[in-house]
């Protein structure tokens, strides 16, 4: 028995499974509807693999209209709907249930328009994050948010979770880089919000939609802002004796009016794991590592780096290593971006995602260490230091229920600590099923009730991704 509870299943839906599948078959061609046990298995979990639930069926619409038809059918028949992009959620955002249909946008992968003059691009929502950048890279443009899973994750999922990435210190997260969406509401109505201009009229429904974790509708198309790439970019490795010194250096860089594009932090265990996987040349004799990336012309980067090196020296930096080539730069980022995958090679892990005020980084790192040790487990820390978004990876063995319970308990304790020092439960991975029951420690009943009254405007009957975000107790429908 696993720790995270799921809502009770709707037996009447389960008993009508054949009828529902027949109904959906009338709306979608055969290759767009997954019903067999084997094939449904591919949709039973996401990157929170400790939890698995087989969906009733999976719809893979090819168009907004097909998605709308499935939504309308589900609405009329009271069937729950779980939206899915590529299934890379770390918080269980795409995990379905036996009485729910998954609507997966994986077949909607067209790039609809690229408009350099207006710096905007229209895509179907199943396009991968990296796919967007790849479409415009040859012309010197890019899409800024870059979650570690960018090779696989879709813009639909990014919008659902308001994903961030390593470079959001300078460029912001998804919500700062999306200009418009085409959205299917619960009853199948199709609406447009925003467009290729700035700011949408009326209430900021676009801002509300982004990060709503599939609770308000399904996004089938998006207009994103594309930016011209900097003349050059250079990641530099800074090795420090301790995490405290690395943390103090981060605060000092920002305090000196320097905002690098990225400041990534790794502790000793994370360095070892990533280096053995990516061979990026990370120093193994240091207690903590910062990857600081600067951008601009060669002269600009050199000037800025000289200032950063000077600051780092005040904090006892042991190693400074600049990438000497594009290949070395790529290796440095490969090591960082494969941190989760590389960790998965040596153990099962759960990845926490709390954000804390950057002044509290040292304290929370120390607290994290103590908490995890008290459960007899190990933790690797790799995170976005510039914005205080921490990612402790708690290592455990998924086949040992007692260890899983301990790991989850440790994760909970860490998140409580994050909230206690003025932070939040999740910086970019979303609440999902994972942190749902912790919402009460960040929000008052009034705060949550207000969110749920907004949610109810879109979905009174709790049909959309209902197992997520809000604690199962005390839910309201209006």
């Amino acid at each position, binding site marked *: 028995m696993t720790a995270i509870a799921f809502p009770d299943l709707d037996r009447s839906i389960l008993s009508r499974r054949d009828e529902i599948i027949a109904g959906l078959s009338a709306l979608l061609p055969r290759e767009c509807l997954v019903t067999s046990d084997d094939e449904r298995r591919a949709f039973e979990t996401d990157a929170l693999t400790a939890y698995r639930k087989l969906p009733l069926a999976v719809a893979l619409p090819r168009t907004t209209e097909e998605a709308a038809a499935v939504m309308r059918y589900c609405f009329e028949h009271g069937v729950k709907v779980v939206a899915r992009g590529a299934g890379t959620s770390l918080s269980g955002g795409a995990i379905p249930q036996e009485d729910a249909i998954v609507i997966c946008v994986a077949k909607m992968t067209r790039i609809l328009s690229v408009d*350099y*003059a*207006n*710096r*905007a691009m229209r895509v179907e929502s199943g396009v991968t994050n990296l796919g967007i950048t790849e479409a415009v890279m040859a012309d010197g443009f890019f899409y800024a948010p870059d979650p570690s899973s960018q090779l696989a994750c879709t813009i639909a999922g990014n919008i659902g979770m308001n994903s961030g990435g390593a470079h*959001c210190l300078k460029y*912001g*997260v998804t*919500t*700062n880089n999306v200009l418009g969406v085409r959205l299917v509401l619960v009853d199948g109505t199709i*609406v447009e919000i925003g467009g*290729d*201009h*700035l*700011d949408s*009229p*009326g*209430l*900021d*429904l676009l*801002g*509300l939609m982004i*990060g*709503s974790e599939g609770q308000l509708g399904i996004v089938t198309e998006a207009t994103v802002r594309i930016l*011209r790439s*900097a003349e050059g970019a250079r990641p530099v490795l800074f090795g420090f004796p301790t995490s405290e010194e690395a943390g103090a250096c981060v605060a000092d860089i*920002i*305090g000196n*009016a*320097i*905002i690098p594009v990225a400041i990534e932090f790794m502790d000793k265990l994370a360095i070892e794991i990533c280096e053995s996987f990516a061979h990026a040349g990370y120093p193994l004799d240091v207690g903590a590592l910062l990857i600081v990336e600067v951008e601009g012309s060669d002269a*600009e980067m050199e*000037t*800025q780096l000289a200032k950063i090196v000077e600051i780092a020296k005040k904090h006892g930096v042991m190693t400074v290593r600049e990438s000497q080539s594009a290949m070395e730069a790529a290796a440095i980022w490969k090591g960082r971006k494969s941190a989760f995958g590389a960790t998965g090679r040596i153990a099962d892990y759960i990845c926490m995602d709390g*954000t804390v*005020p*950057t002044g509290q980084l040292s304290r929370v790192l120390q607290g994290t260490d103590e908490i995890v040790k008290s459960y007899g487990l190990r933790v690797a820390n790799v995170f976005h230091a510039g*914005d*205080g*978004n921490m990612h402790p990876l708690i290592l455990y063995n998924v086949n040992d229920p007692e260890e899983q319970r301990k790991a989850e308990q440790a994760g909970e304790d860490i998140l409580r600590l994050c909230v206690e020092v*003025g*932070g*939040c*439960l*999740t*910086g970019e991975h*979303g*609440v999902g099923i994972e*942190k749902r029951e912790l919402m009460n420690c*960040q*929000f*008052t009943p009034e*705060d949550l009730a*207000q*969110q749920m*009254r*907004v*949610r109810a*405007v879109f979905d009174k009957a709790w049909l959309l991704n209902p197992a997520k*975000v809000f604690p199962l107790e005390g839910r309201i429908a209006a």
Partner: protein
Amino acid sequence: MIFSPASEAEACTIITDARAAKRPLAIEGGGTRAGLGRAAQAEATLSTKALTGITLYEPAELVIAAKAGTPLAEIEATLAARGQRLPFEPMDHRALFGAQGEPTIGGITACNISGPRRIQAGACRDHLIGVRLVNGRGEAVKSGGRVMKNVTGLDLVKLNCGAHGTLGLLTEVTYKVLPKPEIAGTLALFGLDDARAIEALSRALGSPYEVSAAAHLPAGIGSEKPRTLLRIENFAHSVDYRLRELQKLLAPFGEGLRLIEDEAHALWRDIRDCRFFAEPRDRAVWRISTAPTRAAAFVERLAAQRDLRCYYDWGGGLIWLSVPEVDDAGARAIRAALASSGGHATLVRGSPDLRSRIDVFQPLAAPLLKITAGIKAGFDPDAILNPGRMYAGI
């Protein structure tokens, strides 16, 4: 009647009582934007003037929080003392409205007010990271917080930024801030027509030089000659380098000239605050957001039918229009033209009569209007707070 709560708890009581008495309240900050939006249908005023003070400022964490009635000037001075600023360059509406008083941070938040730097740094809503508010049920509610990255729960922060006080009385807001760059430099091109100017702006904004503002002032807007302006803010050596590169890039559009900094600073302030249209006061002023490449044709279509003055900010994507206040002040024509070019129009200045007759904010598609009404009811079921300020009946 004016209520001026000095605490969030007092605000809760006042709103609870107003709800029980079914007495709608018009929310007021510094009163400098009273002319923006439809007139709220209210008998009493709820003022934030006693809700003041910076509650948190951590320069090394790039975050500031203040009670809603805190004057913007106090926040800007506090930030400037530590070499920082609000990145979104909020517009000051006083010149345009001929208003007195002090803009407050709550008013800026409620109206999602940004300026020329919006094109690069993002809007007010992109920097707002936390709000506390009292909803129309008299409950204190928070959303977001004080950290840079936060996706915990639905984003009610953005929903309230630009809601014009229709969802709640903001009591405290938290912003991320940025260091003030060492210097700013402005490049000007002269004599370009609108379409060609926007082409130049697009080219500059598509360059790697991080243009922080891009505007075009046609002939007659502050000068006889059309001026096309690009600003770069950075360390001094970078600004010098980047302006030189920009000049090379834009050579096909004419020989650019770097403006004297004081002159450029004043010009960007005028652009931000729409001072060109401050006088005469009886003309209506529209603010239109559209895709830059469609802006010049949009203006041309309208200009054929009426007397209008205009200039462009945001690389051409923000059009400021001044038209005589006759009939509907161009509302039908503007919105008909937008139907083909995409975007939205807000009547920023108009007489109370005009603002009661036409849609001040862009009319919404039926499903979005229904959602908007639902959200309003979810925050303020008895329509106590600024009723009708944005849309009639909401």
